[in-house]
């Protein structure tokens, strides 16, 4: 389905998450620094490690290796007016890192939080960054910014000490000033920066303020610029307007894989002010206002030839099991993969054996702001404002689509209306740029909700087969876990099993698929934790005790106990019709356990969630309020995929591409959710936007099992009006 677009749109499941190689042209020479930013003090963080980490295991995408990788991860500038400006390629997509990153900078540089400005996701001004995904901002960028800020603070102290002719050890940094307590002299950071043109590069090794001593970091702070959002003043990409700007519309194929047989643009072209473009399989229009653009689009006469037959949602799971791709990979982080003989031995040693299949449907991210882009060509250079989690990746896509050098392309990312892993790509940016080039004027393109539901990409559907064995005392003896298509994240079991294998099997997905919050960890945890619940029932053990017995990892045990305590697990039996469920897991450095109570109406089989408790731990907490918000948001989003969200498709078309047909969680779906946060000040902070979503679905499924004895093995579990079928 991708080959009819004028540029490559390769999306693969998260296992091969879009780790673009570092293609950065650091077109800002360090010596030219003052030309761009004015006088002051600049600190650059040199980090080969960071770039290597970002490359991931599957670099080399699209042969873009021709550029030398940049070794600069981030930089910080102290301006003459005292403003501390931080430059990072990360972007703000609703996870509030604009706030939490500023917090850690304020902490290390000992300046007021308000004096920190963040310049984010502008490919001309910020260092290369692979993208904002994988819960990497807090552990990697957060750490790098702490180092840069810490070094900047040292530099300021040195400057002041030198100016005063005193030993640097006796001067103190606090509140944006350097003070010498003995002579009572004091000078602000801005004053120190005046007249300077100082650029300093530092390695990734400077010591940091231990989290236990944090003053600004570790505190709950509201969203930076929150006032702009509650007044409607913030300009998202879709709100942007340039002088003379046109509005774009794209003609979409009649179905996935359809090819253009013929197209007549003459009627569209005849409408005054309209630019109509037909370039290969790309057909689009631009007009002075959206209504004229729509009229022009409707005036295009196109004939499509349907592509090869495609499966529908009804036979998707059979399809996934029978269309394997070559090159399967074992899953599980560093876990030993046992041989089939060893699995057979483990099963033979078991008192109880269990085989079960779990399935997960495709779901959509449905970010409330659909894809949007504003493109401007000037003097052969292209500037695009667009909502994306990968501004540098989009810059590569644009450079390739228009066969131009990357330093002639600038991508800017205004804080956007969310992504959840769904906005890694730049198709809308490329489309807007193509129209703008033809029109000779800037063009804004905002995808409709139907386009977003159809032409974006989905969380992969999947089939998971598990075969296991357990002794009567609750010891696991065998664990064979096959994931077909949904992905390898969180595929390894955290439970101790002597004989285990957890392979992932790649499939040629009929629908375009890609990353999604938590990736496959949600599917893999749903399968594993549902299965563990069944095993607990087989050996007649309490589900919590059964898990604790088989867990070695004290961090998982800690969240499991914390969730159980808050929930009151074991304190009382569920009331008639009610059920309790619990589930846990770890991924991306975060640890989560979720307990749920449901009630099922005996007559109607209708399910209602009574209560959810989630315990989460991701090391030292940077912003407790932001973290709580992320955990809560993950749970609410998780409710949709757990209970009712599913993409329906047939004959190469999405059958439910609207909010009226695709149910997402709303106010009345949100039952009381209690969040317990464990603050491990001794552990480097990990990301938190994804992992809390993982344990919700199995906790609810286990609670439904507890209430009814019915085991639901498909996500979503109750798509038909919350009724168990």
């Amino acid at each position: 389905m991708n080959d009819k677009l004028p540029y490559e749109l390769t999306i693969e499941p998260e296992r091969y998450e879009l780790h673009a190689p570092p293609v950065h042209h650091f077109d800002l020479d360090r010596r030219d620094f003052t030309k761009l930013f004015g006088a002051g003090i600049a600190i650059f963080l040199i980090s080969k490690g960071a770039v290597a980490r970002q490359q991931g295991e599957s670099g080399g995408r699209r042969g873009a290796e021709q550029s030398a990788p940049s070794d600069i991860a981030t930089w910080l500038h102290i301006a003459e007016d005292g403003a501390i400006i931080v430059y990072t390629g990360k972007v703000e997509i609703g996870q509030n890192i604009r706030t939490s990153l500023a917090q850690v900078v304020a902490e290390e540089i000992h300046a007021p939080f308000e004096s920190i400005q963040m310049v984010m996701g502008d490919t001309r001004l910020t260092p290369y960054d692979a993208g904002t995904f994988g819960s990497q901002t807090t552990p990697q960028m957060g750490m790098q910014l702490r180092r840069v800020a810490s070094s900047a603070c040292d530099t300021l102290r040195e400057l002041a000490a030198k100016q005063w002719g005193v030993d640097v050890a006796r001067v103190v940094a606090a509140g944006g000033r350097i003070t010498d307590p003995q002579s009572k002299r004091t000078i602000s950071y801005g004053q120190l920066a005046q007249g300077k043109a100082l650029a300093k590069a530092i390695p990734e090794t400077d010591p940091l303020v231990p989290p236990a001593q944090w003053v600004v970091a570790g505190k709950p702070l509201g969203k930076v610029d929150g006032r702009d959002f509650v007044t409607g003043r913030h300009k998202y990409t879709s709100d942007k307007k340039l002088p003379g700007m046109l509005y774009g519309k794209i003609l979409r194929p009649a179905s996935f894989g359809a090819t253009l047989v013929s197209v007549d643009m003459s009627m569209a072209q005849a409408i005054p002010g309209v630019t109509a473009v037909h370039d290969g399989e790309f057909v689009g229009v631009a007009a002075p206002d959206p209504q004229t653009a729509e009229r022009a689009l409707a005036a295009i006469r196109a004939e499509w030839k349907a592509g090869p037959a495609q499966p529908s949602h009804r036979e998707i799971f059979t399809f996934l099991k029978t269309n394997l791709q070559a090159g399967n990979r074992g899953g599980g982080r560093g876990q030993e993969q046992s041989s089939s003989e060893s699995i057979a031995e483990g099963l033979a040693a078991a008192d109880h054996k269990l085989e079960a299949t779990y399935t997960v449907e495709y779901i959509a991210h449905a970010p409330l702001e659909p894809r949007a882009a504003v493109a401007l060509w000037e003097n052969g250079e292209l500037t695009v404002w667009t909502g994306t989690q990968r501004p540098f990746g989009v810059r590569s896509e644009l450079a390739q689509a228009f066969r131009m050098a990357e330093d002639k392309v600038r991508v800017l990312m205004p804080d956007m209306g969310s992504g959840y892993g769904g906005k890694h790509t730049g198709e809308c940016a490329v489309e807007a740029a193509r129209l703008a080039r033809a029109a000779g004027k800037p063009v804004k393109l905002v995808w409709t909700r139907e386009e977003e539901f159809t032409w974006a990409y989905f969380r992969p559907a999947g089939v998971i087969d598990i075969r296991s064995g357990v002794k009567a005392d609750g010891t696991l003896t065998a664990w064979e876990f096959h994931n077909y298509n949904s992905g390898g994240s969180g595929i390894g079991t955290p439970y101790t099993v002597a004989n285990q294998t957890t392979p992932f099997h790649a499939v040629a997905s009929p629908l375009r698929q890609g990353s999604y919050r938590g990736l496959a960890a949600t599917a893999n945890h749903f399968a594993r934790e549902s299965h563990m619940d069944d095993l607990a029932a087989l050996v007649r053990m309490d589900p919590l005790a059964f898990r604790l017995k088989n867990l070695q990892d004290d961090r998982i045990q800690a969240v499991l106990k914390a969730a159980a305590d808050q929930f009151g697990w074991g304190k009382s039996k569920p009331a008639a019709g009610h059920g309790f469920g619990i589930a846990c897991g770890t991924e991306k450095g975060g640890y989560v356990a979720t307990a749920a109570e449901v009630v099922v109406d005996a007559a109607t089989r209708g399910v209602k969630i009574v209560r959810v408790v989630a315990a989460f731990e991701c090391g030292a907490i940077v912003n407790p309020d932001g973290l709580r918000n992320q955990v809560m948001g993950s749970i609410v989003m998780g409710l949709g995929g757990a209970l009712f969200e599913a993409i329906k498709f047939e004959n190469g078309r999405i059958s439910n591409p609207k909010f009226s047909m695709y149910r997402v969680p709303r106010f009345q779906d949100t039952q009381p959710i209690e969040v317990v946060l464990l603050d491990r000040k001794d552990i480097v902070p990990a990301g938190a936007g994804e992992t809390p979503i993982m344990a919700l679905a199995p906790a609810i499924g286990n609670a439904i099992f507890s209430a009814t004895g019915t085991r639901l093995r498909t996500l979503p579990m109750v798509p038909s009006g919350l009724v168990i079928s």
Partner: protein
Amino acid sequence: MPVQTAAQSARITEIQVNGAPRAIDVAPDTSLLSVLRDQLDLTGSKYGCGEGQCGACTVLIDGNPRHSCTVSVGSVGKRQITTIEAIEQNGRLHPLQQAFLDVGAMQCAFCTSGMIMSGVALLKSNPDPTEEQISEYMQGNICRCGTYTRIVAAVRQAAQAMKTSGKPAAKGE
């Protein structure tokens, strides 16, 4: 083209927005949302679905909350339209806007304008809503980031603040 001629003959040239007449020039079947955003550059009201399902485009028409994406500008007449841009008065936030900040009732905040407009309308008709009443009233507003619990708390906080200050609820006319 005949369609174009018919549209031209019945163009809408003025609507009442945020207390003042605004000159426009559009066909009557143009959505109110598009007029606000594309003609008047009042971009606080958002496009989220185009079918009145997500509430991101919510405005007040004569004080009543409406999905501006499904309202044609030709049907508005002389009625008063209030958008998020007019909820802050003389640099002072409405108590609900302040409550959204205090509670941190947002993540990406793309839904926030619509949430505040719905909440303002609710507080006008029911100055002291329960949590259940808030959830029911705002069921038509989607927050994909899942901040519903905080939004309910923000509406409750605003109700309390408005009760103690004795201020009338939002202005909608």
